[in-house]
């Protein structure tokens, strides 16, 4: 079975609207999941960063979530929340938590002791120190965690079509389930290529976001 480039181009021309819609869905579900995971992950990180036992527990738990095969996780979610967007978002959030929580904890803990001492010594409350000193200083590290999570979830989101979730996975699954038919390969290739391109674009976007939201005083 060989890829027919002309056929692929024709396929794209005919299905352009579908492709764009799926790309949009894919991006949306990843963005929604990342936003939720960021709120949860950074929040949890802020709660546990200075408490050894909760800290290790949370990171271990997030690590375990990451080892569950995505297909299994999605299948497990069906009886609980049904099909479609909901199980997809839940699964993506679970996969995103480890890099985000871990990087938040690392970032908050990496603030040099001298800076913590002078912040407290000047009369900031521990909460003010967290908000005005630690969080801004940890920001580039936290964003790196989100960036890793973004790469991870763009890939995992492709599997979500298995639970009738949104995104380019629909093309990939359609291709796989119709192997041998005329457009099977076109579907699979388009879906895969879309995922790869989306991953590259999002990664570049993160470089720009990190640059524009990090204090000039922290940039190398």
């Amino acid at each position, binding site marked *: 079975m060989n890829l027919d480039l002309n056929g692929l181009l024709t396929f794209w021309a005919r299905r352009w609207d579908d492709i764009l819609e799926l790309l949009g869905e894919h991006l949306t579900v990843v963005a929604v999941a990342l936003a939720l995971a960021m709120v949860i992950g950074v929040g949890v990180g802020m709660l546990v960063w200075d408490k050894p036992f909760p800290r290790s527990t949370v990171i271990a738990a997030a690590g375990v979530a990451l080892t569950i095969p995505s297909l299994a996780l999605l299948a497990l979610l069906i009886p609980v929340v049904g099909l479609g967007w909901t199980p997809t978002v839940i699964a993506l959030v679970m996969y995103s938590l480890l890099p985000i929580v871990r990087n938040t904890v690392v970032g908050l803990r990496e603030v040099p002791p001298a800076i913590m001492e*002078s912040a407290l*010594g000047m*009369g900031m409350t521990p909460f003010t120190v967290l908000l005005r000193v630690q969080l801004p200083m940890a920001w580039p590290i936290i964003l790196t965690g989100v960036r890793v999570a973004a790469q991870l979830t763009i890939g995992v989101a492709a599997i979500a079509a298995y639970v009738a979730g949104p995104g380019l996975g629909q093309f990939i699954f359609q291709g796989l389930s119709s192997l041998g038919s005329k457009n099977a390969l076109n579907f699979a290739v388009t879906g895969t290529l879309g995922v790869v391109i989306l991953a590259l674009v999002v990664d570049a976007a993160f470089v720009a976001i990190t640059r524009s939201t990090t204090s000039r*005083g922290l940039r190398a």
Partner: protein
Amino acid sequence: MPKQPNTAVLQIAGKTSGALIELDHVTKQYPNQPVAAVQDFSMTVQPGELIMFVGPSGCGKTTTMKIINRNTAPTSGSISIDGRDVLSLNPSELRRHIGYVIQQIGLFPHMTIAENIGVVPKLLNWSKEKTNDRVHELLTTVGLEPGDFAHRYPKQLSGGQQQRVGVARALAADPPVMLMDEPFGATDPITREKLQAEFLRLQASIGKTIIFVTHDFDEAVRLGDRIAVLSNRSQIEQFDTPANILTNPANEYVSSFIGLGTAIKRLVLIPVTEARLGPASAAAGGTTTIRTTDSLRDALDALVLTGLPALAVLDEQNRAVGSISVDQISAVLGTEVPVLAPTAEV
């Protein structure tokens, strides 16, 4: 909603130039440590005094200092600032009125210099204009051009400049008390001397009550109104003026801490004018000159450096008022003239 600060904190805050600090039988015992870090420490610091805590590493001098701003909680004893019991105050509110400078400076790298200096004013809810004016005033005070430095980030400054910002930041809300933990320890010798001189000049005009921790006895002699020589468990071996400690060390420990060269160290404290100057003609030929505002150590230094028998002494108007030689310096040390503390009024 910010809580209304305790009135006792406001009473401390109301005072901007020097407050009385009293430590009464203060002990700090860390759990699982065989001996106390600070044992039964009592001291009264007068308003506007610059007190040096000198001692080897691990003697408890920093711990003692940190008890004052409640950075470290004492196991027993009491601390008061201007009669207010420090231990009854909210620690964060208290610290906004105690300037704090540490060796590593601890400037916030993500904030500009102006933002760094404005941290405490912001905590005290000062208006933007008031904070801004204060930042500019302080930058000028510590010798950094506000237009040039206000919007830079800490990493764009040299070590000495950062330390000046550290001092400015501690002075932001005009606190009556300053705690300084080896503030100039990490700078090179030349910068350190410069910072020390600037700091002395600054203190002469602001008159804060300052606890200054150092392990450098020469720095203590140069800066302190009084020096507390501390040994293990923060025991006070001697607490007196630099001159008295140099001429009359209380015990072996203090002598060994002063080290060699007490005569030369004493010379730092004595202005050239204390010597009986020779005739101006004796210095003929030397291009190096001494000023009446210099110390005898400066004079000796110049004599050794040039190898000349005598150097001309010039007054403020650059008129030669006499000459100085090694003999005349020795004569000052030989006679028991009352030596002056470095911060004595001119």
